[in-house]
């Protein structure tokens, strides 16, 4: 029983590690269309990449600090929201990362 729990825990840790590595790519890809935090989370969750707010917002800030995203505070539905979109650098990096991702995927398919 405890061995089963240990295996579940190990799987969960590895699964999270795998997904964590893919998150920046998923966020960049989703931000080809402008989003604010909450709708970005919903978009990602609807496509099977659920991400909690505690992870998403620091990640958005890091990507913005790296010059891959641009953001602006804007009023929508009488509320101030911060909208994010890809910067020119972000678009270029996204292209390169997409190629890399496909290459990794193909390699793994080959290995499996």
């Amino acid at each position, binding site marked *: 029983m405890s061995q089963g729990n240990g295996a579940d825990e190990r799987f969960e840790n590895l699964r999270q590690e795998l997904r964590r590595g893919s998150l920046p790519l998923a966020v960049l890809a989703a931000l080809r269309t402008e989003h604010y935090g*909450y709708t970005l989370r919903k978009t990602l969750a609807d496509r099977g990449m659920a991400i909690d*707010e505690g992870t998403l*917002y620091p990640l958005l800030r890091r990507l913005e600090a790296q010059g891959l995203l641009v953001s602006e505070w804007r009023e929508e539905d009488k*509320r101030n*929201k*911060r909208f994010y979109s890809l910067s020119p650098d972000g678009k270029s990096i996204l292209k390169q990362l997409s190629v890399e991702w496909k290459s990794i995927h193909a390699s793994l398919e080959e290995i499996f």
Partner: protein
Amino acid sequence: MGMALVDRYLNAVKFWLPRDQKNDIIAELAEDLRAQIEEKESELGHQLSDAEIEPILKKCGSPMLVAERYLPQRALIGPVLFPIYRVVIRSLILYFLLPWFLIWLGTTIFSPDFRIDHPGVALLVSLEPWWLACIHSLFFCTLAFALLDRSQARAQIVNGWNPRALPAEHDGNKISRGSTVFELTISIASLVLWFELGAFHRVFHLLGMTVTLSAAWPYYFWALMVLSIAIMGVACLNLTIPRWTRLSASLRLGLDCYLWVLAYWLCRNWPVQSLTGADLSPAVAAGKIAAINQILSSWAIWVALIGAIVLAFDVRRILRVEREASAPLSGSARHVTSANGIL
């Protein structure tokens, strides 16, 4: 009512955030939480209570954890220097602080004079230099490594390394021929010297005095002879097989045990029985005998302590030999395999 709970949560997160980003981060987080609450309210058709808001906040994470994700990754001593720091701290404890404490403990337990000089609380106060040494050494060591981590030295360690400059693999079970030859020479020399001095006699003359040793001395002498011969035997064995084996390591433990028990026994048994001389009054002689025997007796605790440390190393050696023997690929086999280029 419910929003007050959210405000409290946001306030708690805000406390841990970097000053220049506080308001920006909180505004964004507040907007996200509000959107989640509104969505839940429209789903349930009523305003959320505190009890219903609580799981939303819990899912978001503890305020400190949420804030921590916005902060840059910081460590007093980074992963490059931390293993070295750990080795230094371990050595500091093992070879400096622990022996000091054991000496204090041994003195406290075995020396009545020390207890008389430090009654009650004064006994604990006598440990104060040790406490200060602990705090100072650990503090300055940590400080030195923290500064090193922020200096150029870290970059040199990471980038300036050379595979050829790495230390050779240490084989703890190998016995160097040099040390064995040294041990053999010392044993033979002490044996010869011992006989030359006629140490098997109980009575001998020194500086115009006649010294008579206790009746137990001949037993001690022959016991020491047996020990020297046994040590030479083990040294010869080690010359033939220059690796610690179960047999040689166990023999070493047995001989060391024998040696230190013998030394302890000598110290505790007042070896000088009488002292006579032309210019020596019986009272002075008695005082000198008592002083010599007293000094030897006070050494007993140190002999016991050093003996215990030596025996601990011997036991550790046996355990290491056992580990090597039970390992799937034993040490010698590993070396052979390595030499063949398999590993």
